[in-house]
């Protein structure tokens, strides 16, 4: 097993006071709380911080941990608690830790202080409910999908760490692969509910649900805003000026689109109902981006000089009205 340096996790010196520990924990808890943080590995970090705090906040556990820490580097290969560990400090059986707050701690923690008793599970669960037959808890996770998965209602596979009861009744984290049919038209931030795929219930209660919060992968072409899909469409200056038909890729296939005459930079053109499908289907927007041909080409240069010399056009006239 791997030794965990709880002081390092909280950025503390070994002689930190209990107040320092509390302060450091609060700081990191705010930084990495999965409901607040945008850090990619927030959940893992938050768990590590919680585990470190669980040990260091308790003077007795801290003392026990400090005794180990003094010579943990001796056997670099891996870490084993000393044989008389359990006799010196009676943390076995899990009764010592507060059930619920310790789920998903590392095996290092479990070996030293005993596993959390019941209520295993992902961080997202909350430990509520009592000792009567009750429905298992809902399990939450974030999943990444592609825009096309939502549009076509594709089947995607997700691998999730889910709590399971092993034979001895301990909660262990298991990797489960689920094949999920994505509900058509789901938006970013919405949640897929998989009925009875969450935690086992207690006392014969039914399983909780699995709630998958959807995040879209960045798309090569499109950006998505709620149900609407946006494409920045590059056009030549004469296409914007004179108008005309252009071919436009949409998630539903290529379409011909008419660019109106005298279209300015940033003009939005709408294809109704070609956004995310389903209840209140979204629209597809094309945003015109006028691209200039490179003036390093002598022909382009000549054309531009001709326009400058022959056209009476001042795009800034309105800036100086009233002068």
């Amino acid at each position, binding site marked *: 097993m791997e030794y965990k340096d709880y002081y390092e996790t909280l950025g503390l010196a070994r002689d930190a006071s209990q107040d320092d520990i509390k302060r450091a924990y*609060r700081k990191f808890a705010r930084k990495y709380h999965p409901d*607040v943080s945008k850090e990619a590995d927030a959940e893992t970090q938050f768990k590590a911080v919680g585990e470190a705090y669980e040990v260091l906040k308790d003077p007795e556990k801290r003392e026990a941990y400090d005794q180990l820490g003094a010579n943990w580097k001796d056997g670099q290969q891996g870490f084993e608690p000393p044989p008389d560990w359990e006799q010196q400090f009676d943390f076995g059986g899990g009764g010592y830790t507060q059930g619920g707050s310790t789920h998903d701690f590392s095996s290092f923690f479990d070996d030293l202080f005993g596993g959390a008793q019941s209520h295993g599970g992902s961080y997202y669960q909350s430990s509520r409910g009592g000792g009567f037959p009750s429905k298992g808890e809902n399990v939450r996770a974030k999943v990444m999908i592609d825009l096309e998965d939502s549009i076509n209602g594709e089947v995607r596979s997700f691998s999730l760490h889910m709590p399971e009861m092993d034979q001895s009744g301990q909660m262990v984290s298991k990797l489960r692969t689920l094949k999920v*049919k994505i509900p058509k038209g789901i938006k970013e931030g919405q949640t*897929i509910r*998989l009925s009875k795929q969450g935690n086992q219930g207690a006392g014969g209660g039914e399983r909780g649900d699995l709630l998958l919060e959807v995040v879209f992968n960045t798309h090569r072409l499109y950006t998505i*805003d709620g149900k609407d899909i946006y494409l920045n469409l590059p056009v030549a200056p004469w296409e914007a000026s004179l108008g005309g038909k252009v071919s436009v890729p949409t998630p539903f296939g290529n379409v011909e689109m008419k660019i109106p005459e005298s279209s300015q930079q940033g003009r939005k053109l709408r294809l109704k109902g070609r956004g995310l499908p389903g209840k209140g289907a979204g629209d597809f927007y094309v945003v015109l981006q006028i691209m200039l041909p490179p003036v390093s080409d002598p022909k382009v240069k000549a054309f531009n000089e001709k326009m400058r010399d022959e056209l009476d056009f001042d795009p800034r006239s309105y800036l100086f009205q009233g002068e």
Partner: protein
Amino acid sequence: MSSRTGPVLSGYIFEEEAMLSLSELCQSCQMPAEMLVKLVEYGIITPEGNAVRDQQAHQWLFQRSEMIRADKAFRMERDLGINFAGIALVMDLLVEVDDLRQQVYQMRIADQSAN
């Protein structure tokens, strides 16, 4: 448990499922009604329409998304020790931050394709 060859699971869009009464929300969140009423009082979760003003708590109906908010609020209270007023503020700011992020992202994309 299940394996790679497991069945295809069909999900529902949680937010678009039928609304929940207060007691159903209690059950799904595994929270006492008193706590949820508190969350309503602080505007952290909101029943549909003008329900807070016009109706008794037992008539309230909640969108499913409110359940997710209630869960978040519970975790913030438990893990960060924020009080309800603070949670309401944090949740409002998080929504605003998300909006701003989205705008920055859209602008960046527009910039990239313009250059």
